[in-house]
């Protein structure tokens, strides 16, 4: 981890000035640490270039050692790249606010849908309606209905409607039910599945979501940039949610998806229970990635 190698290199820089030579060595250690943390290679490359440019461009103040300076530069740069802190969801003045959740299979969309509905009701006094629009996974509709029952939050589903029409109906129904926030739980899909990505586009066309969140598994490896890029180009994402951060994955995927989409990481999932959704803290994530 960067703690073992980074601090060794950094310790070796004690009392020294920043030179091209020691920047190069330190940058090599950072690169390994970030790759082991699953930050995507192109993102690592651009990050280390930034860090080394910054380090070389610095006026070294008397008495400050190169090692300390490096730690600060890396930490600060990473925190800044991961930010901003913005868990707020702007709500519509007229009509229901529509939130669409999308992502790869098994990333945690259905669970996150329920967590978000709970958070919006309990903390923002919203009246949410969850929509079971995954028609393909066995018992997906049942899964959302069970979660809705646990939370006492209504779940909409109408048989014989394809997801775009189903979601459109749901938004109409929300008005009728007096619900002011609609959360669309969609089927997991591959970013390379043209038909299913097209279906997602149709859902967005029909419901004009106010928020479109990509739900990503925090333990995702190098592939995170591929899927995030594709989802972002297909739908104009408004935010990212990272799940399963209660594990010990370093979570480099967070930097990858942030960097490739430019969208804010709004929340993180930190457990299976429905109260385990927290606002994202870039500084904590930065420390975690650095190990």
């Amino acid at each position, binding site marked *: 981890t960067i703690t073992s190698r980074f601090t060794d290199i950094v310790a070796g820089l004690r009392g020294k000035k920043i030179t091209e030579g020691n920047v190069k060595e330190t940058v090599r250690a950072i690169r390994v640490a970030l790759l082991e943390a699953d930050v995507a290679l192109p993102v690592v490359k651009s990050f280390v270039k930034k860090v080394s440019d910054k380090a070389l461009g610095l006026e070294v103040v008397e008495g400050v050692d190169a090692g300390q300076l490096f730690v600060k530069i890396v930490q600060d740069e990473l925190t800044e790249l991961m930010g901003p802190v913005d868990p707020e969801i702007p709500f519509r003045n007229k009509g229901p606010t529509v939130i669409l959740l999308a992502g790869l299979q098994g990333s945690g969309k259905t669970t996150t849908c329920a967590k978000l509905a709970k958070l919006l009701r309990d903390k923002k006094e919203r009246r949410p309606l969850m929509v079971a629009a995954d028609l393909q996974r066995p018992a997906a509709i*049942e899964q959302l209905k069970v979660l809705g029952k646990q939370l006492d939050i209504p779940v909409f589903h109408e048989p014989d409607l394809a997801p775009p029409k189903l979601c459109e109906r749901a938004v109409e129904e929300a008005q009728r039910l007096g619900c002011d926030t609609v959360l669309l739980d969609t089927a997991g899909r591959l970013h390379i599945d043209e038909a299913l990505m097209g279906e997602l586009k149709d859902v967005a066309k029909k419901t004009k979501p106010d928020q479109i969140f990509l739900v990503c598994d925090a333990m995702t*490896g*190098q592939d995170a940039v*591929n899927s995030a890029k594709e989802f972002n180009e297909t739908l104009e994402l408004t935010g990212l949610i990272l799940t399963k951060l209660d594990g010990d994955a370093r979570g480099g995927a967070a930097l990858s998806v942030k960097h490739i989409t430019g969208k804010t990481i709004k929340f993180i999932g930190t457990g299976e229970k429905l109260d385990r959704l927290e606002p994202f803290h870039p500084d904590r994530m930065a420390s975690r990635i650095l190990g």
Partner: protein
Amino acid sequence: QLVSGKLDDDALEEIEASLIQADFGPRVALELTDALRDAYKGKEFKQEELIPFLKTRLSAILGEPEGIRWADSGTTVILVTGVNGTGKTTSIAKLAKSFQLSGKKVLVAAGDTFRAAAVEQLGIWGERLGIEMVRGEENADPAAVVFDAIDIAQKDEYDVLLIDTAGRLHTQTNLMNQLEKVYRVIQKRFPEAPHEVLQVLDATTGQNAIRQATEFKKSVNVTGLVLTKLDGTAKGGVIFPILREVQLPVKYIGVGEGVDDLQVFDPKKFVAALFG
């Protein structure tokens, strides 16, 4: 594009990059490119030789494919484990169908007694395939479900019992303890069992897969891996750093959400796909 000639740093860096992006991790990627550099030191190489060199080396690491360890007599018990959302339940449906097609009498145990609609999900697969499923009370102790399933498997002479478990992170001590208890119950009821403990790994997972494999192996003696979602763009190269830490054969790969989207692991095909 690699050009035949001296193996220069640019060419090696390109190869190292593609290995890293396939989730080999920086250390194993560097080892492989160093091996390549040493092999071609001072020699002229033909571009067409590089990839085959790597393929040969990687196939050697993967070894020969290993099938399921069937019981000598009685029911073969297969415990399926893994972290959340990797594809355990879906893989069990695929395995059940495959065994059924080869003439085996298959029983499935709905050992995920916790997650919303987990039993229903497996139940739907069971119905579609015409396969018997053992289920317990809602929120029952999974060990109790497994206990019942083993009794039924032995009494009604099933050839194979597939046990589904709840997803769990290896960092959740109480859940790993729960899994260990299930394992002990199996061992107690059935001395040779479980004959297989299959850890399901999602091919999109990065270096954390190494932790998953080693921790689950420590807990419940994993005997094989199922690598899912290889129909996506992830290459599953993390299998190589895993094999550094622990000897675990990949037995199957998942290549889609349908019940037929399961393939017996073919090391040559897998390695070829890494460079595809």
